[in-house]
């Protein structure tokens, strides 16, 4: 075990797997010599050379399109999109091509790759360095979507994603890139895709969240405990296919649920989670499921902390749901 932050843990996973599997190629804007604008790929260029750690022209469509070609050939590309806000020029390649290759070719062309991209607010990035577009990829058949919240999960999920036969969108919550620290196993260590983590046991309300909001959720759960409300906190870790069993088991126990995410409320993953709970645990519910989310506005600069579903907004939702 080594103490690491998220950046170090992701870097460690990339280095480990690149040493193990020479088909892995990292490509993107500024990922090479400078090691990425968040330094996630620092040192890889020096270790593996510019054939495997490639600074590309400034074009997300080009990065993903070329990465698809590499994957079709049999390489294991790991393209980085510098901010998930800038992924949309590549949306055509991801939605129309990457996600459909296996299906449309009757299995002749699997297209495994891991698209790494920083996600979410909290760095004063305004409209274009803060958004959380994960639901827009969950809505596309054929993609897996992952968002770790701890350094150990970041390493373990990335190693799983790199060995997965399907394309994986790997969202890295940039707000906690350096703030989240923890023990990370050395060497080979995987966390399975599709398994949530019950981070805090509780009896009265289930709180489902992921990414940077995990820490806000835990803070709110601690404050709720001080008010006599016991909250179970689930970190989804894999957003799709999500661990429905863990969520439903918890809701059947507590009868109450609050979903917290940064993305805008309408058509966010929270809506889907609530629908699934309605379908699978309706008779166990003792209060209306609640969502605490980003607002249906563009992501704001100055009022960022009002927009985000931080602890001060989560706590009243927990108390209200518990006392309904």
């Amino acid at each position, binding site marked *: 075990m080594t103490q690491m932050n998220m950046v170090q843990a992701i870097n460690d996973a990339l280095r480990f797997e690149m040493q193990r599997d020479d088909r892995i*190629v990292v490509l993107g804007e500024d990922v090479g010599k400078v090691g990425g604008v968040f330094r996630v790929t620092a040192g890889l260029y020096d270790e593996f050379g510019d*054939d495997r750690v490639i600074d*590309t*022209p400034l*074009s997300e*469509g*080009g990065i993903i*399109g*070329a*990465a*698809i*070609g*590499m*994957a*079709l*050939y*049999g*390489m294991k*590309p790991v393209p980085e999109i510098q901010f998930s806000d800038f992924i949309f*020029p590549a949306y*055509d*390649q991801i939605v*129309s*091509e990457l996600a*459909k*290759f*296996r*299906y*449309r*070719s*009757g*299995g*002749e*062309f*699997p297209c495994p790759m891991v698209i790494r991209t920083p996600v979410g607010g909290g760095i004063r990035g305004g409209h274009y360095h803060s958004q959380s577009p994960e639901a827009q990829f969950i809505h596309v*058949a*054929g993609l*897996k979507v992952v968002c770790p919240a701890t350094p150990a999960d970041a390493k373990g999920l990335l190693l799983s994603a790199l060995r997965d*036969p*399907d394309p994986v969108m790997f969202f890295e919550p940039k707000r906690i890139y350096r703030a989240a620290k923890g023990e990370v196993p050395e060497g080979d260590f995987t966390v399975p895709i*599709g398994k949530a983590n019950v981070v805090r046991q509780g009896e009265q309300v289930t709180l489902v969240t992921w990414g940077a909001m995990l820490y806000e959720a835990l803070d709110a759960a601690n404050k709720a405990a001080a008010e006599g409300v016991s909250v179970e906190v689930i970190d989804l870790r894999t957003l799709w*296919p999500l661990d*429905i069993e863990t969520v439903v088991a918890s809701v059947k126990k507590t009868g109450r649920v609050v979903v917290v995410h940064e993305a805008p409320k309408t058509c966010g993953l929270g809506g889907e989670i609530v629908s699934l709970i309605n379908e699978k645990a309706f008779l166990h519910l003792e209060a209306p499921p609640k969502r605490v989310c980003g607002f249906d506005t563009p992501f704001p600069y100055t009022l960022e902390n009002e927009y985000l579903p931080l602890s001060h907004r989560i706590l009243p939702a927990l108390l209200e749901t518990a006392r309904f």
Partner: protein
Amino acid sequence: MTTATIDHAAHGSARRAPDDALAADVVRVLSPEGTLLTDDAGLSDDEAVALYRTMVRTRVIDERAVMLQRQGRIGFHIGSLGEEATVIGSVYAMRKQDWMFPCYREFGGALYRGMPLQRYFDNLYGNANDPAKGRQMPDHWTYRAANIGSVSSPIGTQITQAVGFAWAARMRKDPLVAMVYFGEGATSSNEFHNGLNFAGVFKTPNVFVCRNNGWAISVPAERQTASATFAAKGVAYGIPGVRCDGNDLFAVIKTTREAVARAARGEGPTLIEALTYRMSGHSTSDDPTRYRPEEGMSPWEKLDPVLRLRRYLEKQVGWSEGEQAALEEQVASELKKVIEVAEAAPAPALESLFDDVYATLPWHLQEQRAELLAGPRAKGH
């Protein structure tokens, strides 16, 4: 072939008159009358006959597919009528290890490379024998065994993919060239820019074949660009751009062969603009009389790539009416068999709807599959 010599004032922007195909910078080997303009056709008489047979076969299949659509027996067809020399000549120029990234008009090239005709028709019918289980529209086929990519509808996406593929092959020291097809309309797409830019920067072993057939559905070529030619676009990417007469099989072969050899030597990609003409609608869903005068077609009929090669072979090897009739009959009987088999095959199994979305079936698709299987059936498949 430098495009800087083109007189913009004289040519206007990427104009599409038949005489443009006769411009001085356009590579041509065979005159419209079917006589050689150079000393050498570049291939033997036997090869020329074999390719002529392939072009005729492609056209007969094309015409039959249109008829099947008109009769309501298949849902759609998008073909290569008038573009056979561009498709077949370029595919012929590829070596066995090279890869073809098709657009959606290159079924003839795929068949030439070895895709079984039955497999093509199973795709047209979307039946249970289709390896992709009827998931895609007609003419959206896949055949990896012959080093061919997978057809999709979005414009230009295959261009960047072909670049990544060729780039990966070079990383693995695998001496292949990836040839990618698109129409002139695709030169307006994001991925044309992305693909050619990446190819230029990383000097990938690619050949870009732009089938300038004059039309993107109803929009004429001059509406796609203010450049004098589509080949000229290579200049900005540091990629040589060459124009060839796309209705001249020998010119297409010469141009694409040189481009393949250049890429194989590690000298980088080439952009080829093959001047040809879409002699049908965009697809069976399109009625070209709504936007182009059919009399505008007649000069192109004189430049028909199949007739041009036939005129040559009549003189060169005495290709006869009898041989022509026998060939057409042979293709017709081949078609009869595959159509019978395709029509006898059932629709794909219901369960197959959920396969291949992922490598293994996640819980939500297991649930949805169970729901479909237990529920009422739809009509119309």
